[in-house]
């Protein structure tokens, strides 16, 4: 399948990288010569320098033979025009990165019925949702949802003295047979492994666990965390992400304080958010943060447009005693830094966009996918059709690649944490955790 990616910014670059690693033919169009050059040198893709909304450039990129267009420049209008041009040229699937809600809200002339753009991804809003999910769990560094929210993937760091530390997975399975979860990946010293029964968990490990959403609350205590309720959240920075998050929190009955250093932006926020308290203040004004009760606050999210300010602000909040601190990080290079400096979790709008788009790229039998910051593995959700080769086979007979693991089976309303003897039935939704190089093999297995 040939995929056309317009825009080689962080989102486009990362998408092109992921897709080419999964053996897709990727053509990348970028208007900035330097960035196009950079992508050409670092990725196994065809790079064209030019305007992605121009028909001649699209023709040059071989739009006739493309089956998918991902328009992900930072400009809504360019993305829209590129998608419309692609549709005209017969491209089957089109995705546009859109930040302005006017364009994607229901009833927009650009909506699917009217213009045929199949997916509009708003990075800021995706990011806000991800932040909300992370905030909801005391320990989580990453959260992703599968099977319409019935299964959750939780990333968390093992605390000192945690119950699970120093034990192998097999041992844990025997000791806690009443717990329904599966350890899908372990990240240690920056290296991701898909564990087997002999793998031993150590303090400081970063674990990725899959569990039915109803039982996710039981996981953090295993890794040494207290369970908690989300009642009060402060958002430092009135960025688009901050505003979306404030709205989501408001809708969930969480008490929100949001601050920004620009008075006019504060007024906009105060007008847009009926219940939140809006403060005109700086994200690094420690005295004010203390006065407004950051100590003991359930969640603190630094969401200014500046990564350095966000990290600093998060650290201040953590020092003063905020329980869970999440930092908005735009630059991918900073993502691995976050756990080292002591911030609980990070979110990236661009990574959120990449995830949302990848989820869509693998449409068909693939229903959802989550790329996780700082690690290479991906979680993918497949639906098993009646004619599928895997239907009716036991897990142990699947012969999955070593760097892949079946996390959960969803059968109707039932969520199964599987063992080797469990059978896959037609109609099941299967969530698999895998390293990128294993993905083509798995896709082949499920497609066959």
């Amino acid at each position, binding site marked *: 399948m040939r995929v056309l990616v317009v825009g080689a910014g962080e989102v486009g670059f990362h998408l092109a990288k992921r897709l080419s690693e999964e053996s897709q033919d990727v053509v990348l169009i970028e208007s900035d010569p330097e960035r196009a050059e950079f992508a050409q040198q670092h990725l196994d893709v065809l790079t064209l320098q030019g305007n992605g909304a121009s028909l001649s450039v699209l023709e040059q990129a071989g739009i006739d033979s493309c089956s998918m267009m991902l328009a992900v420049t930072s400009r809504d209008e360019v993305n829209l025009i590129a998608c419309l041009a692609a549709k005209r040229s017969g491209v089957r699937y089109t995705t546009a990165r859109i930040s302005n809600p006017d364009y994607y809200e229901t009833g927009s002339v650009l909506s699917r019925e009217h213009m045929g753009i199949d997916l509009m991804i708003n990075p800021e809003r995706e990011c806000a949702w991800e932040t909300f999910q992370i905030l909801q769990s005391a320990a989580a560094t990453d959260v992703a949802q599968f099977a319409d929210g019935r299964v959750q993937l939780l990333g968390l760091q093992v605390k000192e003295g945690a119950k699970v530390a120093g034990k192998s997975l097999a041992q844990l399975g025997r000791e806690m047979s009443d717990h329904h979860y599966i350890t899908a990946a372990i990240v240690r010293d920056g290296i991701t492994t898909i564990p087997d029964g002999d793998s031993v968990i150590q303090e400081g490990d970063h674990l990725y666990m899959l569990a039915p959403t109803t039982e996710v609350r039981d996981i953090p205590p295993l890794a040494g965390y207290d369970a908690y309720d989300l009642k009060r959240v402060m958002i430092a920075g009135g960025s688009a992400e901050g505003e979306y998050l404030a709205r989501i929190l408001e809708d969930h009955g969480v008490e929100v304080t949001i601050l920004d250093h620009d008075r006019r932006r504060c007024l906009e926020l105060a*007008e847009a958010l009926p219940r939140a*308290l*809006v*403060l005109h203040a700086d994200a690094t004004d420690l005295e004010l943060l203390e006065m407004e009760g950051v100590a003991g606050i359930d969640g603190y999210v630094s969401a200014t447009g500046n990564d350095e300010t966000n990290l600093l602000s998060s650290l201040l909040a953590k020092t003063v005693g905020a329980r869970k601190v999440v930092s908005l990080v735009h630059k991918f290079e900073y993502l691995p830094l976050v756990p080292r400096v002591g911030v609980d979790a990070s979110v990236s709008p661009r990574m959120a966009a990449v995830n949302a788009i990848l989820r869509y790229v693998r449409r068909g039998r693939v229903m959802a996918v989550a790329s996780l910051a700082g690690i290479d593995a991906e979680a993918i959700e497949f639906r098993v059709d009646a004619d599928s080769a895997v239907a009716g086979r036991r897990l142990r007979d699947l012969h999955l690649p070593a760097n892949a693991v079946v996390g959960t089976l969803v059968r109707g309303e039932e969520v199964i944490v599987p063992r080797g003897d469990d059978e896959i039935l037609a109609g099941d939704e299967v969530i698999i955790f895998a390293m990128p190089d294993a993905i083509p093999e798995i896709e082949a297995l499920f497609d066959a």
Partner: protein
Amino acid sequence: MSLRKIANVVGLLQVFVALAMVAAAGVALGYGDGDAPAFLLSAGITAGVGLAAYRLTRFEGDLTQREGFAIVTLAWTATALFGSLPYLLTGVVESPMPAVFEAMSGFTTTGATIFRDIESLPHGILFWRSLTHWLGGMGIIVLVIAVLPFLGVGGMQLFQAEVPGPTPERLRPRITQTAKLLWFVYVGLTAAEAALYLLGGMGAFDAVNHAFATMATGGFSTRNASIAAYDSAYIHWVTVVFMYLAGVNFSLHFRAATGSFTYWKDREWRFFTGVVVAAAAVIAVVNLAAGSYGAAGVEPAIRDAVFQVVAIVTTTGFVSADYELWMPAAQMVLFALFFVGGMAGSTGGGVKAVRVLLLLKQTANELRRHLHPRAVLVARVGRKPVREEVMANIVGFVILYLLLCLAGAVAMSFLGMDLLTAIGASIATVGNVGPGFGDVGATDNYAWISDPALAVLSFLMLVGRLEIYTVLLLFHPEMWKRRKSFH
């Protein structure tokens, strides 16, 4: 600022006033009062002066906002002056000042009268009093805009300056259409009320006059005892309902007429209605507890409480019971209602419910600001935020309103009134209510008041009707400074 343009529009408006006088002449003729010539003479003078001003000047270009303010204020002043002619020429009033007061009270829908014995007045004069109410209620200028689209864009300036409330709502893209729709609703409700009065056994003449006075939230009656003259619960309740409807934003009525009932969604409506219900309940309970309705029963106590609350809050000023005989607590509740007024976009006067509501919210915000000194707080009506400039405008308005009431009361005391009467007369005229407290109370009139005091009160009525800023701007020195313009 072009005086020619102003004279042109003001002159034209007087022609409409003259037409109204011709209508009153018709009534006088029909009832054989013998006042028809006096009305026609008044109409002739008014039309003559108006037409002269209109023909000797020309209207060119657009209206500036300043010109709009000047036109509205001067047009209302001229209307009151010419509107006093029928009183003088028919001889029912002997000196000019009381006549001007009566005309101003009519057009501003205040309903304060200088007549001691209303029932002895001829039909033509009674009808003229009610007609001044009815024209002033929805606004003479709004009427002219509805009929004559010649003002074009400038019409909006005038419309804004005349229609009560912070920001008038446009029901249609064109201002002329909006004005027409508002008058359509106004005429419809007036006709409905008159018909219901007829069904209740009121005479046709009284029915029309009371319908005019009710829908304009005026308060002139054809009876000395006002509505209390009718010993009919039905007539009292009909009056209550229509006074209330006149105090509600006419845009809501228009929507209801076109099939979409949006009353409940409107926060100002909820507040306004809440105030009415709460105040009426308190007064009814206080009066019943005091035993003042001992023999009469519960229904009259509730009816009088609701009637007086609606009459005062909508600034109509009809009287069904002498509220000055009520318990002090009940009177005090009524006193507070003098400062609420009707909804924005209604024919009612006063501060307007939406301003009171927003002021309360702003006050709550100021309290909250002490807890969070860096907070940016926005007052809102429902979910709709109110911009800071609008809020500042409202705070300024309420302060000016209160200062005006105070200044009026001080002036009245200097002109010889006792404390209660001075305060009562001041708040009753600024709010366009009519009856106040003390010697201008529910069963009193303004007949005994000296000319200078009447002049001050006439001014207060005008300022109150045109929502203060429009009139006071004329006294601001910068208003009259020449500015270079391209026109």
